[in-house]
């Protein structure tokens, strides 16, 4: 680290605030010898510059008497702001009374007018910056107890101090152990902590041969500020290999996100939030170890932020529309409409149609999916009741129950309340759960499924065959319906193995006494093959795409006429 402290490549930035251009120019000439300088002619301009999240200032030189917004107000506003609070302020004045008042509000030092000689001013600025940086470093605890690396606070305090003195290009790297939650859940917290310690040791080892510092950012994410290199992929793979063996041969998934820091630009916190975003972008994608932050990723983040902030409005304004895809029983002489799956669409008033693929996984990550699910449950219940009134028949509708819903202990009563409100039988709201969501935490799932079935709900296992614990899960969770994932159906006619797999899954369903629904059926040949295998129910574009409730109503009408027709034939 010594090398950091002695080199001086990049300059710290100082903001000079004075309404007199002569004073600004004079100070600018003095300070630009050692610092980057920025200027503001009044408090308002100063606050505008300071509010730029990409700009990092090490010091503010502030005139107290200015038009528009005076220096006292600037001090107060900075004190009230989490990010600006740490920037030391030197006030420039010749008023003794003002000095007392400003030191009470939090100024670090004074420069009197007329100014002292340049050397004196530079020395005072330098000392003030140093003191404030030392203070912020001393304030934070240095080491993270679990990983042995720096704590997050210390790391960033250190970085602010370090950056102006660096003369080599650096990268911000976020390292994350994918699905670390599972390790804690399955092996326990103690073992989880031990693995975090191993990761911390590996990072420390790496830093003995490179310039850099590291901390544990949060939970299982590490931040490494490191001299730029081009072998992050190799590095991550190597670290994962070592980590696997330290973790007793368990296979861990290490992911790295990299952001190349632009010298003199931006705030270290932003660099690392970008590195972290790059890392999160490859979460769960098998075989991808490393990703770089890109503009595209930035735009996606902005887009996601927008979606998150618009959810509540969208629910209130009913911008979410539920579509219904019909499911047909194909085992009789003619396919019979038996039920529907509720699928959500988002018609955003400004962004237009947003695919569920864009927002479902996003909302699953942050828990907002609970609101969406609840909305769909109520919509579906309303619709079932409406169709009953219109056509005198009850069409069961499948709705999604996400992982977070399952962990909500109020789930069972929420669903029952909806049914009571619309006076519907529980068998009419079929609940789809996804197997992949529960590895390692099946207890609550089993409990919830048992409770719900007791109340009369039917449980469907969605995307069957795509998860990694399928068979094991099936023996302990009572399921009424298995839904075969559409990727098997799509491949079954081209790929002998996929064909065999579908046959086997239908056999398994038979063994478990569960009905089988095949999703994504598009062709007649697929339909025929599935019928031959004994698949009961089919859904897909062969019959119909998801439809708005009214259009679905037409299918119900048609179905009722055909039923009458077939009764008449008999």
């Amino acid at each position: 680290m010594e090398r950091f402290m002695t080199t001086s490549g990049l300059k710290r930035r100082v903001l000079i605030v004075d309404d007199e251009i002569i004073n600004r120019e004079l100070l600018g000439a003095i300070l630009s010898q050692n610092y980057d300088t920025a200027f503001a002619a009044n408090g308002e301009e100063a606050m505008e510059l300071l509010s730029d999240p990409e700009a990092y200032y090490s010091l503010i030189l502030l005139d107290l008497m200015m038009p528009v917004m005076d220096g006292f107000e600037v001090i107060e506003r900075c004190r009230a702001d989490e990010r600006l609070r740490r920037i030391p302020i030197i006030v420039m004045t010749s008023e003794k009374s003002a000095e007392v008042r400003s030191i009470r509000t939090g100024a670090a030092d004074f420069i009197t007018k007329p100014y002292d000689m340049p050397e004196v001013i530079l020395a005072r600025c330098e000392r003030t910056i140093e003191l404030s940086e030392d203070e912020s470093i001393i304030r934070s605890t240095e080491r993270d107890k679990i990983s042995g690396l720096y704590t997050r606070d210390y790391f960033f305090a250190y970085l602010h101090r370090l950056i102006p003195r660096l003369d080599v290009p650096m990268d911000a790297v976020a390292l994350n152990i994918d699905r670390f939650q599972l390790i804690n859940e399955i092996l326990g917290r103690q073992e989880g902590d031990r693995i975090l310690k191993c990761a911390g040791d590996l990072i420390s080892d790496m830093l003995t041969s490179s310039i850099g510092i590291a901390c544990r950012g949060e939970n299982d994410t590490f931040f490494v500020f490191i001299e730029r290199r081009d072998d992050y992929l190799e590095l991550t793979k190597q670290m994962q290999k070592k980590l696997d063996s330290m973790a007793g041969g368990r296979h861990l998934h290490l992911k790295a996100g990299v952001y190349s820091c632009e010298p003199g630009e931006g705030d270290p916190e932003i660099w690392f939030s970008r590195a972290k975003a790059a890392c999160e972008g490859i979460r769960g994608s098998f075989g991808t170890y490393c990703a770089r932050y890109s503009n595209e990723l930035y735009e996606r983040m902005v887009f996601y932020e927008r979606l998150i902030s618009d959810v509540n409005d969208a629910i209130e304004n009913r911008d979410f529309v539920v579509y219904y895809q019909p499911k047909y029983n194909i085992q009789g002489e003619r396919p019979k409409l038996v039920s529907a799956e509720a699928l959500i669409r988002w018609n955003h008033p400004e962004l237009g149609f947003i695919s569920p693929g864009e927002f479902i996984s996003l909302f699953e990550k942050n828990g907002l999916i609970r609101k969406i699910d609840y909305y769909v449950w109520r919509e579906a219940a309303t619709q079932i009741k409406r169709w009953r009134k219109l056509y005198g028949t009850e069409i069961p509708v499948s709705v999604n129950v996400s992982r977070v819903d399952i962990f909500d202990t109020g789930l069972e009563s929420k669903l029952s309340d909806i049914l009571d409100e619309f006076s519907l039988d529980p068998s009419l709201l079929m609940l789809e759960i996804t197997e992949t969501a529960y590895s390692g935490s099946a207890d609550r799932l089993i409990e919830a499924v048992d409770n719900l079935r007791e109340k009369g709900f039917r449980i469907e296992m969605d995307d069957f065959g795509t998860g990694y614990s399928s068979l094991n899960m099936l023996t302990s969770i009572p399921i009424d319906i298995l839904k075969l994932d559409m990727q098997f159906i799509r491949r079954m006619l081209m790929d002998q193995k996929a064909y065999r797999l579908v046959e086997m899954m239908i056999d398994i369903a038979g063994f478990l006494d569960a009905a089988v629904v095949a999703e994504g059926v598009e062709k007649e040949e697929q339909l025929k093959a599935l019928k031959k295998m004994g698949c009961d129910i089919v859904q897909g574009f062969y019959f119909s795409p998801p439809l708005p409730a009214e259009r679905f109503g037409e299918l119900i009408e048609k179905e009722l006429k055909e039923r009458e027709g077939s009764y008449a034939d008999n």
Partner: protein
Amino acid sequence: MLTIDRLKDFGADTDEGLARCCENEALYLRLVNILPADENFDVLEKALAEGDLDKAFEAAHALKGILGNLSLSPMYELCSRITELLRSRAEADYLTLVTELLAQRDVLRTMCAE
């Protein structure tokens, strides 16, 4: 044209002024050139004419800072006197003092324009 020698004749402590400008002569002369146009001179004159001593104090105070920074000693000393009098809201012959200050400003302006 304004030169260091002429500023010296004007009474400025040019050694100090130049040192404050990091010995950058061009910068020093450029900043002195800006001074005569500073609006605080007019604000000061007008505020005194209207009897607004608060405003007059602010303007004098601001001028004092600039004049001191440029080491224009005669003007700085005069302006300091005005500032201190205004600070205590003392009864004084402000008109004469300010007229003298403005006259010096005009001399400087002429020097700059020549």
